[in-house]
């Protein structure tokens, strides 16, 4: 009896978290490659092989060092970012029973992951003791607050109909109608915030080309591999939360719950990959205006909408 409980509550959920950390990241890289190919970007290798060969190449590459870096931050930042992504994935309920971390405030813990990611990204850029990396770090912090605010308002919106901050209860509240229908502004805003928080596509301002690679300009070899894995893992965690709070998580006919969650996560990752390739990178100042003057008011409207619907 105890063994089966252990299997249900600990082993399977953790296996899913690690599967998402490994397989999810790989599939994201493949989807990104497919999106790039659909826009006609030439690729020397097949999209299935490229992530593996890049990973292998980074693994055998020499890891760079700078003059007088902050040694702990320099080595720990990529690992901490990966750890935060793992915490995010641990919050995703794979089915009614398979939940790695089932807190009464798991939605707030996801908000904390977003906030602490800002610290870790800053640490990555700051600890290198290098100009462009520091500029990327400052840039991310300056913009990151607006990302977090939008995400918070959208997530408060999904907590309202569930009358709970527990992600499992939020899934249960979507039994009749998913939040993507009930709060139509929520998912689009959350998808844009997801790209911004993992600095991808149009919002790649922290590790951008104009900063010669930004926070990771000095990082090479295995630490670079961990950093890139962590950025992708954070996006996978993001897709897990989005699939859960907007697309009904494990709910769905015929198939078992975990399979539904995975399919929904893959659908969101595919949309993210396409969005990331479709939009051009915007300048930081225009990104700031976009976030504060357009997306944040839309998040307010989403929250008011959610509140009115919950009251009716």
């Amino acid at each position, binding site marked *: 009896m105890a063994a089966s409980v252990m299997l249900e509550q600990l082993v399977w959920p953790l296996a899913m978290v690690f599967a998402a950390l490994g397989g999810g990241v790989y599939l994201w890289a493949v989807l990104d490659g497919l999106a790039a190919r659909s826009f006609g970007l030439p690729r020397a290798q097949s999209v299935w092989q490229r992530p593996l060969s890049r990973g292998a190449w980074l693994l055998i590459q020499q890891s760079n060092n700078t003059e007088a870096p*902050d040694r702990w931050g320099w080595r720990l930042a990529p690992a901490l970012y990966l750890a935060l992504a793992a915490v995010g994935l641990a919050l995703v309920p794979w089915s009614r029973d398979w939940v790695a971390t089932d807190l009464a405030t798991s939605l707030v813990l996801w908000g904390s992951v977003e906030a*602490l990611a800002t610290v870790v990204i800053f640490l990555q850029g700051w600890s290198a003791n290098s100009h462009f990396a520091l500029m990327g770090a400052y840039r991310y912090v300056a913009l990151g607050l607006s990302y977090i605010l939008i995400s918070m308002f959208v997530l408060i919106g999904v907590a309202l109909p569930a009358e709970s901050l527990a992600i499992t209860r939020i899934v249960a509240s979507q039994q009749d109608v998913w939040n993507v229908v009930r709060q139509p502004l929520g998912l689009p805003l959350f998808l844009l915030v997801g790209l911004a928080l993992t600095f991808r596509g149009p919002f790649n301002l922290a590790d951008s080309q104009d900063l010669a690679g930004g926070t990771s300009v000095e990082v090479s070899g295995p630490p670079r591999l961990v950093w890139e894995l962590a950025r992708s893992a954070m996006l996978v965690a993001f897709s897990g939360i989005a699939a859960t709070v907007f697309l009904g998580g494990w709910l769905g006919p015929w198939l078992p719950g975990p399979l539904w969650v995975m399919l929904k996560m893959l659908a969101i990752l595919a949309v993210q990959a396409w969005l990331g390739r479709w939009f051009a990178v915007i300048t930081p100042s225009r990104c700031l205006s976009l976030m504060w003057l357009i997306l944040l008011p839309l998040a307010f409207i989403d929250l008011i909408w959610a509140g009115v619907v919950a009251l009716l």
Partner: protein
Amino acid sequence: MNTSVVVDVAFWLLAVFAVYTGWRVFRTDSMVRASFFLLLSFIAVGVIMLLLSAVYLGVAMFFMMGVEMMVMALFMVMFMMNPAGLNPMMMVHQHRLSIGAGIASFVILAAMALLAGFPQRPLPDDLEPVVALGNELLGDSMLIFESAGVVLLATMIGVVVLSSQRGRFGSAEHGSMPPGLEPGGDPAGMPDDDEEAGGHHHHGHHHCH
């Protein structure tokens, strides 16, 4: 598995970690490092609060302190004139006063911990910590909390809207033209490309005739 032993071990490890990182705040040599050591200390305290079943307050500690310490590090580096906070610097000042204040507050807090009579109330089985906290905070003071919250948010957004003018002379998309020396006048300090040498021309229209 005896959960209470696990909780005890976790508590002691976290408590030692919180005190150690708190001590490092004053012994390190950079504002950024000091802020992040303080953040680690607060995170350890937040996990202890989770162990005490304060699930909202513990998790709130993570995101509040995360953003707070980040902003603090950023501003301190800007104001301390220490390039990027990576140059070694002394983190303590007014040594005698701070030693005295430290000893006094340690004695007071330790006396409170040892002498105060803490209530012995086991948690009820049907405890809903978030609901209980919400009633405690918002029961009678809903109006005050909500209006203060909305005012703070409006202030924050107002500040960003006012300060998000991009160029020194307006939006970057409209080209950066300095204002005229008089209302409606030509942009000040622009090179004259016609031959009216020396004269201040007050045509009120553009200077390319």
